[in-house]
């Protein structure tokens, strides 16, 4: 019998999990941290500290600004230098709090011990409140505020909690490391989220290029019949929420819909661990595991990094910036964003820092489309990237709506596979942006 996987499209790029098996380490504290106020999807948080204030580790420095927003905590103890615009990983200047690091003195009441706390007696409402107060967002990269996902909208029922341990991006190993080292904590976290969500069943999906993680998670969850671990065939983009739900349950999230439309809510393992720490240890989300990797990186590592730590600091701790580095990516090679500068901070959604060498950094020359159909074959959403690109080139944005361009998850499989190295996704993004404007204008009328 074949392993589970999603049914449409998909690719299998070289995995390059160089940092697999590296223990989670602390890189220490930098001298200055820069904590952006917009680290999540939704409204940026409202800052509640000012220049000159002294803040403690774990203290709230910005509050949720609306329902789809969340709290942000100081990741260090020190003095607020500035609340100002600082460049973030996008290269744009955005509101952030800069703190001079003095020491690491945590707010009282936070349990810093490593002892596993298995039992919990919190109610569903209490769990949701703690998740909100602790600033937890989806750590898989989408950074959607987690408390929102725990509130099932009226008319929908949550049936399954799905835990995303797929980590299908090449190079990245943060989730893998977390599963190996914090498996018992993760299972407690799963139980907490099941209660917070009000479901009886949870499925943990892990690709079978991580047999050690599958084994250890199976063992850790053995005493709970309600939690099952399902190994998955290695295929990108299986970590995409819609693909994962389909792979595990054969349910297709409708076009434009969310997993809850088919009775499912999905969380990344990083989010589950953060939920465990929040509920059992009273620890807010202010650090995360970040993989620092690349073929020429001296010490590929999985660092438990404080939010706000400069990327350059992490690279230094991984053996320094190799001479031949030409591109630095925040995230993995398929969906990560290339950084234009290295003094930008690690945020809640940063899963890895990938350094590419000169020969990997550039795109190949674009050639004519030979209509080989590879982009159509690999598209996990059943779209026709070659057609969408042509339509976007000709500014036929309204026609793109009928071709379902808004379903594109920007996984990059089409570009990866194109023998003519065509910039398919660049044009699809352009089309999505322009069509988005048209759709919003239509709604406004």
């Amino acid at each position, binding site marked *: 019998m074949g392993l589970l996987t999603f049914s*449409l499209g998909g*690719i299998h*790029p070289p995995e390059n999990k160089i940092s697999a098996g590296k223990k989670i380490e602390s890189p220490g504290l930098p001298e200055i941290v820069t904590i952006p106020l917009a680290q999540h999807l939704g409204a940026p948080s409202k800052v509640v500290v000012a220049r000159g204030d002294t803040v403690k580790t774990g203290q709230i420095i910005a509050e949720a600004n609306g329902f789809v927003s969340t709290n942000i905590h100081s990741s260090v103890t020190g003095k607020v230098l500035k609340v100002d615009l600082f460049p973030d990983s996008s290269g744009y200047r955005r509101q952030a709090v800069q703190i001079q690091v003095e020491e690491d003195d945590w707010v009282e009441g936070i349990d810093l011990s490593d002892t596993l706390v298995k039992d919990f007696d919190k109610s569903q409402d209490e769990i949701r409140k703690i998740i909100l107060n602790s600033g937890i967002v989806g750590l898989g990269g989408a950074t959607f505020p987690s408390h929102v996902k725990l509130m099932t909208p009226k008319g929908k029922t949550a049936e399954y909690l799905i835990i995303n341990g797929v980590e299908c991006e*090449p190079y990245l190993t943060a989730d893998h490391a977390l599963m190996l080292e914090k498996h018992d904590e993760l299972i407690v976290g799963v139980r907490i989220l099941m209660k917070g969500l009000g479901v009886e069943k949870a499925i943990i999906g892990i690709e079978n290029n991580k047999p050690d993680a599958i084994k250890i998670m199976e063992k850790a969850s053995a005493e709970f019949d309600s939690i099952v671990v399902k190994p998955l065939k290695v295929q990108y983009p299986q970590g995409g929420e*819609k693909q994962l739900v389909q792979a595990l349950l*054969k*349910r*297709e999230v*409708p*076009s434009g*819909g969310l997993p809850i*439309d*088919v*009775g499912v809510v999905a969380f990344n393992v990083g989010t589950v661990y953060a939920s465990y720490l929040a509920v059992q240890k009273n620890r807010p989300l202010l650090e995360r595991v970040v993989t620092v990797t690349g073929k020429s990186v001296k010490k590929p590592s999985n660092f438990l990094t404080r939010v706000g730590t400069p990327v350059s600091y992490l690279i230094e701790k991984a053996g320094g910036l190799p001479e031949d580095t*030409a*591109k630095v*990516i925040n995230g993995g*090679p*398929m*969906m*990560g*964003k*290339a*950084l*234009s*500068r290295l003094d930008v901070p690690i945020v809640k959604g940063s899963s890895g820092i990938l350094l*590419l060498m000169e020969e990997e*950094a*550039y*795109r190949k020359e674009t*050639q*004519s*489309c*030979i*209509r*080989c*159909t*590879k982009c*159509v*074959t690999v*598209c996990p*959403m*059943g*779209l*026709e990237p*070659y*057609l969408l690109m042509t339509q976007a080139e000709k500014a036929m944005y309204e026609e793109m709506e009928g071709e*379902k361009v808004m*379903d594109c998850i*920007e*996984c*990059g499989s089409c570009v*990866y*596979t194109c*023998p*003519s*190295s065509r910039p398919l*996704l*660049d044009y699809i*993004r352009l089309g999505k942006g322009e069509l988005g404007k048209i759709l919003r204008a239509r709604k406004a009328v």
Partner: protein
Amino acid sequence: MNKLVVSPSPHARSAESVPKLMYGVMISLIPALGVSIYFFGISVLIITAVSVLSCVLFEFLIQKYMLKGKPSHKDGSAILTGMLLAFTLPANLPVWIVIIGALVAIGVGKMTFGGLGNNIFNPALVGRVFLFISFPVAMTSWPEPLQRLKYINAETGATPLAVMKEGMGKQPVSEIMNELPGYLDMFIGKMMGSVGEVAAIALLIGLIYLLWKKIITWHIPVTILATVVVFTGILWLIDPESYADPLFHLLTGGLLLGAIYMATDYVTSPMTKKGMIIYAIFIGIITVLIRVFGAYPEGVQFAILIMNAFVPLLNKYIKPKRFGKEVKHG
């Protein structure tokens, strides 16, 4: 440190490239070329070399002096067109006719539409059909196998398909079959026919290679062959003395060459699997209609060109299965 390279994701690319795909197809043609050289000798080398060289040269000249674009003759597609054109010609065709075929294939079939990726019709077939209509005698006299050192002076005869067409209706099929090579000879390519179409076994090896290297999928070739087998099979079951059996149709003429190499041409075939199947079924049907009921003994070339014309329409209306159309609760 140096400036950082910034570009949108993805940052990883597969090793695929256009020349790599083209050379993959050429490699798969080697067995067919080898068998053809074995049976038709030196003339095959002449025809193929002239066809390939003139296709590349015409592409280069047109690109450089008429379109004034970047030279594209190195991407391998012109070499492939040249090989495929040669494969559809009789081995004793004079050089000057081959050159005209190459000019029409590249000039009319490909470059008038804007070069690689933009042509509607398969360039090699455009060249072949032009020659077929312009030089009907030269294009329908075929050298008998095993005259390895002869070229235009070779003894000639008719292909099995032509013999069948000639005799059908006048005498029973079983009698016509007695005049033709046996199925084993047909399978290994010992019969009269175009350079690259005779050896079924070599073409099937090529097909397996193409499928193994994932250069093409099974949809087009298998569907065409299956359609031909089913259609001719029905006719044959109705009256085996009036219609040839399916195996005869599979092994003779350009069916295998067309189904494996011409109909699967990326540029001129549909973009979705469903589209490919519809396209292939019609190629199969039209081929049999022409062979059995039409004026010509062979119909593959016309079937493919006709269906090439429908490809834009198929691409417009046949869409892949989209993700998330229907909501299933299980």
